[in-house]
């Protein structure tokens, strides 16, 4: 794959489309506005369920990373190594590599690991976060097996002139964070900059045993800073160009675990992401062309053992998506995507490259009581054809307050670069993990009045994945090597209840969710020792979360509670279940042109001593104070 030629090809396409848009603009400036069917780009997929991260919760945690936000507001299980440390996700019993992460429709995963560290995603850079549960590779792309997390940094053309927002957070364990969002909109231009700086000592203490002194975390400082520069140009109501440049630097010490005397290890991450998009919105047609380039570096250093290793990967993405409305009820989507990965690391014998090309198409029919969609995706990887994957879903509303939905799909995940090229035991012959998934659910509007709403959703699902990749020790070998050896079956139930009551001056809402995941190995493996029928490690069977929100005039009270069931670990131990409560109180003060929101947040309000990962202590009750000032936009 010629990297330069590919880059040039996509830039020319983008330029062509933009120029074409400008030409069309010149021709149609004086054209009367037509009555048009609004083409909605972001319609969901029939039959799937999603959780949206609550905006007010997000506003109160401006210093948080996305992992922290997901813990408190969704059914995603986030494996965190503690405050300031890495955070990866598990949805419906899948591994972190089974979570597809899209930012403005572009994949973000690290191709070497096949997953994303959510502690490196600042909430300031993301306006919307939605978790789509379940498998849907055809629609969301390679690796969308557990679920898809859709992140968006949006454009708001309703804002005029200057927009400004400043956030400052101080908290326990040396937490200091400042964030600035500054933007200007003038007619057709909008330019926004979001920048942040965050540092923390993370020197929390945790309990080993009631009769023993607390142990304080050491070598745990973190320092992050970053900037997201946006540029938006709306040529006219139909043509728009967007560009983003994301730069971020993370310096993170790696603390010892609870059975380690000390650690001097640290990790440095440097990320640059540049994206550009052209969008055309026609009467019954939408076209979006995107180009993205990522350059990411990671350095891991542990002078205690004389280890210093760096890796660098670059990603080039080009994709085009078109949505055509056909008549009153139908919509046809088609897309092309090309991704090129290049990774350099001492862990590989030589630099690794991988090229993927995918084409997908979808059909959606939406009627008053019935919605149906069908998607199909075909992808090639380094010239090899991957499984053709279809997906079909439907929603039926026999009554206005009752809906029934279902989805069935075939899905796959390609091996990451480490599994393919790690020296000496990477396995370039690995096949993609693949399998089928089915889910069905019902939704009920229990109460639907102007000031009272209650809604319930229940889902059951089943998924079977074969050729699941595991690093195993062959019977006559000395090295662990990845192989398509495992098979995992996952069944589960998910329930959501949302209740809200609103008056002139107050809003009370309660959201609750309960998830049951039974994710078991179908086959036994000798090393690592896995017994058939056993639950996957670090995969809780039971999870419950709730968000109670009360807003009265300018005050807001928020309480989040989470129950996470017990999990087995890699060390053959069991971590007990735990309850975690987060308390937050906020008040808004208006001064002239500014709104100032002051929030006091107390994470782990009940001071629970708990573990997410074996041998990793977690902080007890602590505090954060946040001031968020927003310029009123007229």
């Amino acid at each position: 794959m010629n990297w330069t030629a590919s880059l040039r090809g996509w830039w020319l396409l983008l330029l062509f489309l933009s120029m074409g848009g400008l030409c069309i603009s010149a021709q149609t400036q004086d054209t009367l506005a037509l009555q048009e069917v609004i083409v909605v780009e972001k319609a969901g997929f029939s039959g799937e369920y999603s959780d949206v991260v609550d905006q007010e919760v997000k506003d109160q945690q401006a210093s948080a990373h996305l992992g922290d936000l997901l813990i408190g507001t969704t059914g995603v299980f986030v494996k965190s190594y503690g405050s300031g440390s890495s955070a990866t996700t598990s949805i419906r019993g899948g591994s972190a590599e089974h979570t597809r992460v899209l930012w403005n429709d572009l994949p973000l995963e690290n191709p070497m690991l096949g997953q994303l560290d959510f502690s490196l995603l600042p909430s300031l850079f993301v306006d919307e976060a939605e978790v789509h549960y379940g498998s849907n590779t055809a629609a969301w792309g390679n690796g969308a097996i557990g679920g898809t997390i859709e992140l968006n940094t949006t454009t708001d053309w309703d804002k005029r002139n200057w927009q400004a927002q400043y956030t400052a957070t101080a908290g326990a364990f040396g937490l200091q964070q400042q964030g600035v969002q500054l933007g200007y909109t003038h007619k057709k231009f909008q330019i926004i900059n979001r920048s942040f700086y965050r540092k923390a000592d993370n020197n929390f203490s945790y309990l080993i045993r009631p009769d023993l002194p607390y142990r304080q975390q050491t070598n745990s400082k973190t320092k992050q800073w970053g900037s997201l520069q946006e540029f938006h140009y709306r040529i006219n109501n139909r043509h728009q160009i967007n560009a983003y440049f994301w730069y971020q630097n993370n310096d993170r010490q790696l603390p010892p675990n609870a059975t380690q005397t000390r650690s001097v290890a640290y990790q440095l991450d440097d990320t640059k992401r540049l994206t550009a998009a052209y969008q055309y919105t026609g009467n019954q047609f939408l076209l979006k062309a995107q180009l993205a380039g990522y350059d990411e570096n990671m350095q891991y250093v542990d002078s205690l053992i004389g280890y210093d290793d760096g890796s660098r990967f670059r990603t080039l993405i080009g994709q085009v998506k078109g949505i055509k409305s056909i008549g009153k009820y139908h919509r046809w989507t088609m897309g092309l995507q090309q991704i090129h990965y290049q990774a350099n690391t001492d862990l590989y014998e030589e630099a690794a490259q991988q090229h993927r090309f995918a084409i997908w198409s979808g059909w959606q029919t939406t009627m008053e009581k019935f919605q149906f969609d069908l998607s199909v995706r075909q992808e090639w990887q380094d010239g090899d054809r991957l499984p053709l994957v279809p997906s079909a879903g439907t929603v039926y509303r026999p009554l206005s307050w009752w809906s029934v939905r279902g989805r069935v799909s075939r899905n796959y995940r390609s091996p990451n670069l480490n599994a393919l090229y790690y020296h000496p035991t990477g396995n370039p012959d690995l096949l993609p993990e693949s399998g089928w998934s089915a889910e069905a659910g019902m939704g009920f509007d229990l109460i639907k009045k102007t000031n009272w709403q209650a809604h319930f959703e229940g889902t059951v699902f089943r998924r079977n994945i074969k050729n699941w990749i595991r690093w195993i020790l062959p019977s006559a070998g000395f090295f662990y090597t990845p192989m398509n050896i495992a098979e995992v079956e996952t069944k589960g139930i998910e329930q959501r209840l949302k209740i809200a009551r609103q008056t002139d001056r107050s809003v009370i809402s309660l959201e609750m969710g309960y998830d049951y995941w039974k994710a078991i190995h179908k086959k036994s493996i000798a090393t690592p020792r896995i017994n058939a029928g056993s639950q996957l490690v670090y995969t809780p069977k039971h999870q419950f979360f709730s968000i109670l929100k009360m807003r009265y005039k300018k005050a807001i009270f928020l309480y989040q509670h989470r129950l996470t069931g017990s999990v087995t670990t890699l060390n053959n131990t069991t971590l007990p279940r735990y309850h975690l409560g987060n308390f937050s109180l906020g008040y808004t003060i208006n001064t002239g042109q500014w709104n100032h929101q002051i929030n006091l947040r107390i994470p782990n309000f009940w001071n629970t001593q708990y573990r997410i990962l074996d041998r990793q202590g977690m902080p007890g009750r602590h505090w954060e104070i946040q001031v968020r000032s927003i310029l009123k936009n007229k």
Partner: protein
Amino acid sequence: MKKVFTLIILSFTAYCGMSQLADFEDFGLATGTFDNDSSPEAWFETEDLRFPNDYNSEFDFWTGWAISTDTDTQTPGFMNQYSSISGAGGAGSDTYAVSFVSGKSFILFPENSTIRVNSLQINNATYPYLSMRDGDSFAKKFGGETGDDPDFFLLTIKGYEGGALVDSVLFYLADYRFEDNSQDYIVDEWTTVDLPVGFGAQDSLVFSLSSSDNGMFGMNTPAYFCADNLQISNTVSTIDNTLSGISLVNTLVDEVLIIDSDLEGVSEYEIFNVHGQQVWSGRLGFGEEQVHLGFLPGGQYWMNIRKGSLQWTGSFLRR
């Protein structure tokens, strides 16, 4: 009485002999170095004892034994594989052997050997010692978070003769199982381990490591230990029932074991693994015979050949 006295003298003679010391000094390594590649041989050999070594040059990876004069007692982690925690060999000597135990490690004796190891000195390597003392990313600090976990790191030494287990010795390289935590210890000096008389004339010693710190991927504690100053003596058996005229053409076996036999007619053979279990049997004729053993897992095996009341035993390594 005379017959009894003669028998006693013969028996005494049977278990007396010249004593030797395998101290590895004959390898002549410079201080602070190591040798982890015995090629072209499949073992390091000293005082008729063979210490198997398997080195992969493509991956720079070794198992079995290495010879070392490394002195680093401070650096934790796998980059410091070759040092003993004493920073020297037994009795203050320079050179010692380090074993990375992948499953099992062996000390082999020559065919028809009459020597036995009476004792050897054992010590921890720096890597597992510091891992047990301080913990690391993979293995726990012994005693655990509270200091009360009943952890242990155990070396088991088994003696085999003719494919059959003779006896075994347990030596704790670390023991935290005491009620009184002040008694917990990690071996940090060379310790003499006597092998019981019952070991007899061995044809191999088999070493294995076990730990209380285990996970899905097996033992978390680094699988290394050090050995030095093996006290060796000769034994003479008063009963000679050994077949002669048999030899193994190759003692390192990939797929096929080749036996050269001068025995007329048919003899029977059995093959045993390190657990003393018979894994294969068959018949051999005169001349060069091939036995296909590609189905066997890697490891040490013994072949016992019988013809009438006579027998012969040899060992080989399946790679």
